[in-house]
């Protein structure tokens, strides 16, 4: 494996939550390398720390110890501004509960990452391109007819596809998904997984968290989290 090939590397990650006087050691030395173009599934029992790990990889949270580097850059060293930019440009997040903004339309939700780092003027200049990309994404996921709808008017599967479109808006190098099918029936969930497979075939790097072995098998590589450590890399 040469250096060009991996985009994200985690070494010796530790994370402890403090609940009152009790300490919950969630991660106890996680090592992980993610290569470009991979589709990885992280599996583990509920409460094993999968979400925690994913959040740390995506810079939504920090580890107590250890290092996450992206393309050779230590993420812990990034200043707030750079970190925001990193979240915006490089990472795309998909959550179990979709997490769409209720007040915005489907199209606006997808456009949020494109607006997040831009001034009003910057936005006015790039608006057309961004809108086209958002519409194209939504069309690709079969949502062309719903761009003006509000999230509450959509089904779970549709909402999740909107969330995926939002995550892909800025063409992130890494797509992180936390139980993306966890709230959906198996048929709808299957649809979402198919979307992931298609994206991966087109070169998208994906890390997906799931507690379901069957779903995990759809990924190219499975990582099992047991007792705060990676058990085996298949």
């Amino acid at each position, binding site marked *: 494996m040469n250096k060009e090939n991996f985009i994200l590397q985690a070494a010796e990650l530790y994370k402890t939550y403090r609940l009152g006087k009790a300490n919950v050691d969630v991660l106890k030395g996680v090592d992980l390398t993610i290569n470009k173009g991979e589709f990885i599934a992280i599996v583990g029992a509920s409460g094993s720390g999968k*979400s925690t790990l994913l959040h740390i990889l995506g810079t939504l949270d920090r580890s107590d110890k250890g290092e996450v580097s992206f393309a050779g850059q230590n993420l812990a060293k990034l200043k707030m501004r750079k970190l925001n930019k990193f979240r915006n440009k490089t990472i795309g997040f998909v959550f179990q509960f979709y997490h769409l903004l209720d007040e915005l339309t489907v199209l606006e939700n997808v456009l949020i990452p494109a607006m997040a780092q831009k001034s009003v003027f910057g936005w006015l200049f790039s608006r057309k391109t961004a809108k086209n990309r958002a519409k194209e994404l939504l069309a690709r996921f079969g949502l062309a007819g719903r761009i003006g709808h509000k999230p509450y008017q959509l089904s779970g599967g549709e909402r999740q596809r909107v969330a995926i479109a939002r995550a892909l808006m800025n063409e992130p190098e890494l797509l992180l998904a936390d139980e993306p099918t966890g709230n959906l029936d198996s048929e709808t969930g299957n649809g979402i997984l198919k979307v992931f497979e298609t994206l991966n075939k087109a070169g998208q790097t994906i890390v997906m968290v799931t507690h379901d072995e069957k779903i995990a098998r759809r990924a190219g590589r499975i990582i099992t989290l047991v007792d705060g450590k990676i058990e085996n890399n298949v």
Partner: protein
Amino acid sequence: MYKFILAFRYMFRKRISYFALAAVALCVFIVVVVMTIMNGLVDDFKQKNHSFTGDCVVQSESLVGFAYYEDFVEILDKENFIAAVSPVIKSYALVSLAGSSRNSGVEITGIDPIRHSSATGFGKSLYYHKNNTSKTFEPDYEPNLPGCVLGIDLVLTRNAKGQYNQREFILQKALVVSCFPLTAKGALSKAGTGLVNTKTFYYSDNSHSALASADSSVIYLPFEQAQLLCGMAGSTKRANAIHIKFKSNVKLKDGCGKVAVLWDKFKKAQQSQKQAALLDAVSVKSWKDSRRSFIAAMEKEQIMLTIMFVLVGVTTVFIVFVVFYMITSHKSKDIGILKSVGVSVGGIVNLFSNFAILVGLLGSALGSFAGWLFLLKINSIEQWLFEHFQFQLWDRTIYAIGSIPNRIEVDLLAVVIASAILACLIGAVLPGWRAAKCKPVDILQVSQL
């Protein structure tokens, strides 16, 4: 851009935002209405005092008055920053209607009607001689009789709407005025003899200065007659005050300063004169200082009212704060999502400030408009209430108010609107900042449970 879109959506899609809006609008409405009325009343009162006094007064603190006033009037007449000068006699007297034994105490003011009308608003306060002030002291029913002008409340009553029951033709009334003449040393000049000077005057006009204190106690007499009655017309004549009006381009402070300099020079020049000591009791005052005691009471009320409204403002900040606190707690999921796609803390604070400015702007626009509308109609509303329910905000038989002042001052409005927006910002930025500082995982995780 999301900052504006979301701010707008929060404003118009959340019912709770309308409560914040209503709180701001209501507050702006109340402040604009009450401050406009209060400022109007104070300005009106000041203006009446100004009109009553002229711009500047050279006055003696003593009822004895001061001598050599004629020379000083001559000096003032020559100054070209001065428009008019009016020497005045002031004293107290007992008055009774001829044939009646009932006396009442009044202030007498001896004036030259032409001079006094040019120096003050006296002429305009008259009813029958408004446009003919030279004949002020000539009763229409017998122009050769010595006339007197009565403070309007001494002769007329008001109807419930606050209007005086003026008569088209003046009624003949003879008033016996008794005055206590004083010598230059301040002693009663007729001690041991008849003591008082008494003369009968005939009602020739009434004066409505709209200052309750003046209208209910002042009788104007011709200058020479008053001077005679008060024992000031001896070999060295005396007066109590000189009222001065400046040319319109002269600033009050500058004018009064110049008069004070002239007075000091004059006083020094008179040092060797026999009654020079009387000049020491004389001071030069602007109309504001001269009427200080009256205006100060009114201004104190104004300040108290302003303080009260600062408290109303604080309450609004608190309401807005609570509403924003609720909205940010309600919208913490949105904040987490925005942060997860790379929006900064500043961006989120900015989003909520935009929302706050929107609430502040809309609220004050609404409140100002309602206030404007209400003030526009306030007099007709009051009249309607009076006609149907006999209700009056100010009992016109007691208060010397014509209509309720309702001219909104632009700078007051600007200050109120700016404060409203500032209040919203204070109320919004704090909870916005608190919410923005949270780690996105904490928020998103919580909403997962």
